[in-house]
């Protein structure tokens, strides 16, 4: 089932700022969709359009077949949203905040308390549940916001930079939680500019820059758009003549190949020439590199169009 469907969506703010420029994409239910781009790329605007907070200037979007602009209340009942500007109340305790928002989502008091306590426990916040939010650190607030977004067991979670401000241990905990939710069928629409982080947990991606969508798909598809080459790292006593390599240190080399099938041939070649192999590893192009390559390709395309 398609959870999010965006067709030719654009948003031009008053003053002419084109925050989102004619983007189209689809996200299936249960996917962890990473919507990636630098600050100001249009990620948060897209979330706001998908949640009905903004009205599209052009195009359309649907979330579980609901038009956010027409049925925002129905959509909010089945979605959870965590953004930088969606804060909670400083004068209430962490637990009271969760109970208040749970009530707004139609949960009864005992259900609210049970779920809130379970989430506080899952996000290592049980010790702070009775403390006022004003005493929370940034990371604690971030985790409580995540708990708030998940409180009513939404079908889709919109998360804007969910791990910003978290220590590595908490970030890891949040990642595991996100993956568990996805495994249980919750769709995750995750916006971040941290590409390495996204590669750890996302199943599909949308790369956005200056409001325009550069590419969508899983990592293999994105990689194929840039290059299918692999970098093989080697530590060997010698490299036979005729082999193209880049020396990176004492007895360490990088060799670029077109596919994994070429790796055994390289090893055989070294051993056949009388050399010893101490280490072999193959690195595929990381998401970060794919992203910058796509930006370069897009800039080149735009320059060509402007000529």
């Amino acid at each position, binding site marked *: 089932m398609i959870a999010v469907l965006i067709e030719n969506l654009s948003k031009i703010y008053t003053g002419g700022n084109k925050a989102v420029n004619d983007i189209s994409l689809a996200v299936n239910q249960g996917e962890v969709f990473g919507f990636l781009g630098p600050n100001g790329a249009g990620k948060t605007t897209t979330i*706001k359009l998908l*949640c*009905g*907070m*903004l*009205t599209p200037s052009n195009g359309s979007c649907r979330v579980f077949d609901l038009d956010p602009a027409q049925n*925002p*209340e*129905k959509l*909010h*009942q089945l*979605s959870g*949203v965590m*953004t930088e*500007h*969606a*804060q*909670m*109340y*400083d*004068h*209430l305790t962490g637990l009271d905040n969760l109970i*208040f*928002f749970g*009530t*707004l*989502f*139609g949960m009864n008091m005992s259900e609210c308390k049970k779920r809130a306590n379970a989430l506080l426990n899952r996000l290592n916040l049980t010790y702070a549940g009775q403390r006022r939010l004003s005493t929370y650190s940034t990371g604690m607030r971030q985790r409580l916001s995540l708990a*708030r977004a998940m409180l009513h067991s939404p079908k889709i979670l919109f998360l804007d930079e969910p791990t910003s401000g978290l220590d590595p241990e908490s970030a890891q905990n949040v990642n595991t939680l996100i993956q568990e939710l996805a495994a249980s069928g919750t769709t995750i629409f995750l916006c971040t500019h941290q590409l390495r982080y996204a590669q750890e947990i996302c199943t599909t991606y949308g790369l956005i820059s200056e409001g325009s969508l550069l590419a969508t798909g899983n990592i293999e598809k994105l990689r194929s758009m840039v290059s299918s080459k692999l970098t093989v790292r080697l530590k060997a006593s010698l490299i036979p003549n005729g082999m193209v390599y880049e020396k990176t240190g004492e007895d360490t080399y990088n060799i670029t190949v077109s596919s994994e099938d070429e790796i055994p041939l390289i090893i055989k070649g070294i051993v056949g020439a009388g050399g010893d192999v101490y280490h072999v590893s193959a690195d595929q192009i990381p998401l970060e590199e794919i992203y910058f390559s796509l930006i370069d390709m897009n800039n080149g395309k735009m320059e060509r169009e402007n000529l």
Partner: protein
Amino acid sequence: MNKRQLALIKKDIRSITSNKQAFMVILIVPLALTIVLPSILVIVTALVPDSASDFQALLDMLPITAQEGDQVQIILGLVLNKIMPVFFLLIPIMASSVMAASSFVGEKEKNTLETLLYSPLSLKQLFQAKILAGFSVGMIVSFISFVAMMIVLQIEMLILTGAVILPDISWLIIMLLIAPSISLVSIGITVRGSAKSQTMEEAQQRAVFLVFPIIGLVVGQFTGIILVNSWLLLGIGMVLALIAALIIKNIVGKFTYEKLLK
């Protein structure tokens, strides 16, 4: 009114009591207007010797029918039933506008409005709950102030003059018609301006112009141009109720999520 809206109203009322600055304003203004100011007027009226006062000149100037009886009693009756009702109206204006500013712009300032907007409450339900929260606080503060003022004034008058002066029908009109209406008008004005306001204080200031007609009434009375009587109050109350209904009716349609988050 559903449970979700009730939860929002409770939260808003709890928010204002935990905001020391706003809560102090809500406490101090009624204290000054219903305890301090009337007490001064009563004490001065009762203790200043008749020969040293210009009370007779004041009574001659006021458009009231000639009254038999003790001059001090007449003056105290004027203070209680003609002067204080006008001052009293500042209380629902102030309490409601502080509350409305806190629950709309205050939420915007603290980045909590967006979180509320992501809830399944419709904008109409959200506005209804917030207007009702402001109205409840305005009315609770007004009624408590009225009761406190009556208790203090009656005790003071009893001690100083040996008699009590009961509130007349003006107070009934004030408490049941004008105070609720002016409270809603004040909320309406504050909320309408909330989209353009970035701070609570800025939003509150939009209701300030409601104070000018009240000052006009006070000045009018002291200069003998008009006298606040029951018919005038009834007329003012009905006009305010009509304005309140119009403002509140139009207010919801005026807003979209996008305008609220600007």
